[in-house]
């Protein structure tokens, strides 16, 4: 019985953390340019200095 009262809030807190993380990714525009982000990860930073 006691263990439920400990585990239940923990599980809810974990769920809320996941929800909060999703909200953050949404707010910081991580889904705005999927094609661009997919390409950006392949670019070397040094490329930017050659112009």
């Amino acid at each position, binding site marked *: 019985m006691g263990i439920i009262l400990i585990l239940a809030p923990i599980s*809810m807190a974990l*769920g809320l953390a996941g*929800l909060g993380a999703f909200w953050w990714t949404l707010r910081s525009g991580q889904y705005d340019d999927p094609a*661009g982000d997919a*390409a950006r990860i392949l670019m070397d930073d040094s*490329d*930017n200095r050659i112009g």
Partner: protein
Amino acid sequence: MALTYDLARAPDLSAFLRKDKDGSAHLELLVKGARCAACMSKIESAVASLPDVSMARLNLTEGRLAVRFASPRGDTARVVATLDKLGYPATPFDPAKAAEAHDQESRRLILALAVAGFGAGNAMMFSVPVWAGLFGQELGPATRSIMLWLSAIVATPCAIYAGLPFFESAWRSLKAGKANMDVPISVGVILTLFISFVETFLNGRDAYFDAAVSLLFLLLIGRWLDHRLRARARSAAADLLALQAPAATVLGQDGLERIKPLSDVAVGERILVRPGERIPVDGFIEDGVSELDNALLTGETAPVDVRPGDTCRAGAVNLTGQLRILAIARSEDSAVAAIARLVEAGAQTKSLYVRLADKAASVYVPVIHSVAALTFFGGLAFGLGPREALLRAVALLIITCPCALGLAVPAVQITASARLFRKGVLVKSGAALERLAEVDHVVFDKTGVLTEGRPRLIEAPAEALALAAPLARASAHPLARALAAEAGPGPRATDVVETPGQGVEGLIAGRRARLGRASFVGLEGVRGGETELWFAYEGETRIPFRFSDQLRPDAAQTIAALQALGLSVEILSGDLEGPVARAAQTLHIDHWRSGQTPQDKAAVIDALTAQGRKVLMVGDGLNDTAALAKAHAAMAPGAALDASQNAADLVFSGEGLEAVADSIGVARAARSRALENFGFSAVYNLGAIPLAMFGFVNPLIAALAMSGSSLVVTLNALRMHGAGRR
């Protein structure tokens, strides 16, 4: 590898520069052709290395470049010139025109979906022990009570937040005196939460918190799919709108050229229109000789000659010479705007269309609600307590939830439009697919739809072609270019002088030659029916080259396919009788009309609609836009004028017309999938209603039945992936 900077040609875009409070400024540009990672790094590094530019970031998905300048007077011209040098033409983009509010809505739906997902998952976790208790396992009433309360704490706020989109829509619908799908959903969710609280208070076992949230979760998936479909098309349309009215080159009092947003052009201003540009507003030609292509305005294929003193209408394309025009109307008062108003009127009639799901809801809502009421009062009459009677009525509402209705149609439509998208067809909304499936009559525009919309050389001997080709290659005239394209690569004429509206003169291997209209080579009073070009060496025989607008290679095949589908076909063209009759004859189309004005076309569509026909209009020109907007469904080729693409429900790209027949096939398949899903839901509900009425439904059965029905409906929708595959 420094980029040289050509000041003379760079337009001034400072009108599009937005100033920020901190003294910087930013500019949004729509960049054409940026499609790969390499383009992205090339564009960003080139623009960011310009002086005064503090940031350049390209959104590859939408093809938009955001440039931030360190000072409020940013050098916009230099940015555009740099992009031009790299081979990416850029247009200023007014983000105010993009549907900002729409994006908010999308974000809200995703968040509601996430909240509902969180709520459903966590409430379900507390439900599992309660469900286990239903089978006689040991679960004391105290533990069950704790589980139910925990479930309530998680599910209730989630259900209220995730349910808001439905509650709001239901309220709007009720205020308008109608009942849409969201009314039973809202009633169901609110009643379920209420009865579950009562049960939890009374230490009962029938609490449906988990069912309420997972119902919303499943419905939100459907809602979001539907929204995404529209949002994608709408952002495409917003880009087009932004492109459509970019700017006019205005000549100031000081003689300087200045790019102004079209809406700022005032009557009496002098505007420069270069060859290849569109006339921005109705005007009076002050200087310059050229030919105007009115094809998109009137459907005429032959260009019209203009000289100082003539008037020109907004929307026409300037073909050969530079023109200076005096604006005689503002953008809103120009010829184009009159057509735009017709389009608006058409769009309004279209919005009255009742969607399949709402039609189903109009039957479903009264039936289910009266059965639920019957269950409650019948239960009372047969001696059940009010609590048990209400529980059965609510269980009935939950188990017959319109999940399948909410998910059935969007799931089918998103798979159908994904199929069409791969074939190069952009579907603007789910309603468009539904309307397209009902079509029984197809009206085609001729120029640019049945035909390729550009002149192609016909009947010319190879040796004549070889003679004229060097001059043609040196000219910018569309007919000469068509000739050069036919001849292939080769030598160019030298000392070339182009006379706007007349032709081109130059030296071919030392001999003086001319290519142009009949009078230009010394022939008077010769003018054939076809568009033509004459070639002559000085003082020698003249050789004519005739051009005609060829039918698309698969036009005949597409018409035959449409007729095989049981559709009647008609041509409505603004072109002259001869070419229209010839096209109709070649394609075996019995009904055709020529010389139609935009108003005529719209009137024909109205008349057909009045006869009860469901018309699909396929057109590309400005003269088609009103008809496109008024027709039951409308398609436009990707090469069409932006206004036409906006008025159309579907836009197809590529050379072929086959997309028209394909789309109808997929739309019909989607419709039958959706109807199957409705049929499935009806059968399922018929089975579920007696179960609920006689009290066999408990929370576990409700949860299983609900997700089960949604799964079946979604799987059936996925069968669309194979539909229409050849």
